[in-house]
């Protein structure tokens, strides 16, 4: 294209590249069909409210104190869940990855339980931890434990054996072996596990909140739904979605191996 010798500075669309442009087109197409569907009135009542109503609801939602207090509850529940499930997952993963015996004895259970929908344990959690935030944290922690444990175990097994021998030849203390060899070597798989664990703990917490609760974003969504306030329900969903995407992108920044950035 630049054969004529004049290089024009690319516009915004040009700078995006073909993939970025396609993504924009997809988003625009979805929004347009949404609006068309809303205008057509084909679907029962407000199942697909028009975009400007969702936008208004979003603004109203973000301006309300009720939203922020519920969002804070959910955020704290997810943080607590990830702290508990993540810590337990890393610890169990290190044990499993470090011993062939433990791996063969226990890992099949993790592999089978991992993909099982954890919501089936919710009744147990309610009995154990009550209808408040306790059972939500328990659900999130249970959900995040599995991907973190499995990913850590795989990472621990993947630690280059020669690096361990290097550490031994330099007389590292057991603590130094952990902090200077094992942890840096498994950083990427552990963070990947935490990213997956974060995703499923959000799911676990929100799902639990929609089932039985009196606070949190899941509760808010269900409130809007029971009032048939579809615009507000969609607004809440958009906020949850945006927050999850942003946090995921944030964690991803740390999972690119150092020195391997392209």
């Amino acid at each position, binding site marked *: 294209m630049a054969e004529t010798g004049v290089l024009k500075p690319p516009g915004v669309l040009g700078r995006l590249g073909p993939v970025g442009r396609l993504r924009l087109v997809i988003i625009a197409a979805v929004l347009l069909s949404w609006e068309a569907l809303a205008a057509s009135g084909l679907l029962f009542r407000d199942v697909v409210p028009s975009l400007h109503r969702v936008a208004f609801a979003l603004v109203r939602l973000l301006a309300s104190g009720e939203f922020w207090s519920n969002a804070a509850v959910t955020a704290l529940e997810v943080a607590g869940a990830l702290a508990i499930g993540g810590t337990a997952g890393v610890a169990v993963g290190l044990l499993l990855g470090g011993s062939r015996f433990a791996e063969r004895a226990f890992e099949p259970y993790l592999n089978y339980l991992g993909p099982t929908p954890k919501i089936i344990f919710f009744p147990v959690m309610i009995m154990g931890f009550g209808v408040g935030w306790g059972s939500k944290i328990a659900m999130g922690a249970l959900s995040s434990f599995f991907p973190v444990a499995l990913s850590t175990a795989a990472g621990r097994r993947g630690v280059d054996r*020669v690096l361990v*021998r*290097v550490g031994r*030849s330099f*007389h590292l203390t057991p603590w130094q072996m952990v902090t200077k060899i094992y942890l*840096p*070597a498994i950083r990427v798989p552990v963070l990947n596990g935490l990213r997956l664990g974060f995703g499923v703990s959000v799911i676990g917490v929100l799902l639990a909140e929609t089932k039985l609760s009196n606070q949190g974003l899941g509760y808010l969504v269900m409130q809007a739904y029971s009032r048939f306030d579809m615009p507000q329900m969609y607004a809440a969903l958009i906020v949850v979605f945006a927050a999850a995407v942003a946090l995921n992108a944030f964690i991803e920044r740390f999972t690119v*191996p*150092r*020195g391997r950035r392209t």
Partner: protein
Amino acid sequence: MKGTAMAGDTPPIDARGPGAGDPLLVVDDVSVRFDTPQGPVTAVDRMSFDVRPGEFISVIGPSGCGKSTLFNVIGGLLDCSAGRVTVGGATVRGPHPSIGMVFQEESTFPWRTVIDNVAFPLEVRGVPKAERLDRARQTIALVGLAGFEQRFPSELSGGMRQRVSIARTLVFQPGILLMDEPFAALDEQTRLLLGDKVLQIQQDLKQTTLLITHSITEAVQLSDRIVVMTYRPGKLKRIVRIELPRPRTSDVVSSPAFGHYVAQIWGDLREEASRGMAESETAGRSP
């Protein structure tokens, strides 16, 4: 204890090191057996030799003859099935503080920059930051990597990474330097020049060095004595004293005496190497 060799059909020419004084490192009748699903494998069979203070010794043998196994035993990373290794008279029961090891495999820390890799042994010993970075920088320059301090290993060639590993071990000035085919990944020219560097460092510091290699020229270029091993089981075949004058540089490779030594050791190794090749061909594994 005596460091005299006991195994091998051919009696070793000279199992004792040059110069006076007690040997610093003694490999005393060491055997290593591995239990494999196919049955026990004797990787090292009754090896004995000793290393005097300040001496440069090479252990040479074809691939798979048990050199790395011996290296791990001397470094205290692997227990031998019989015999023992002593350093300064004391039996080795784990990594010895005065032995520095350079591994055959890629062993740099991919998450550390070159300078942080090289400073690593000083860091774990609690050397203050300014001092350890200073010493690391000097050692990096010594192996010819000045200017690459802030790079990550993934940004370097295989040969450069191996030089980082060598610098990382040299930096804490171990009493005994133990290297397992450290130059194997390098091209011939770099190998000769880096060999010069290591030799120069070794002579300057009077550092006792045990080099494991499969390269005859490398062994003759650098060593005071060469320990030749047989193939499967790894036994002591012969110990050859290299009487080439010091200081030696890579120029020595063109001298007639050098050629004489190479021919002599090749004579010893040819039989072992061809046995190794035949075996690996029938077993279908790469040498």
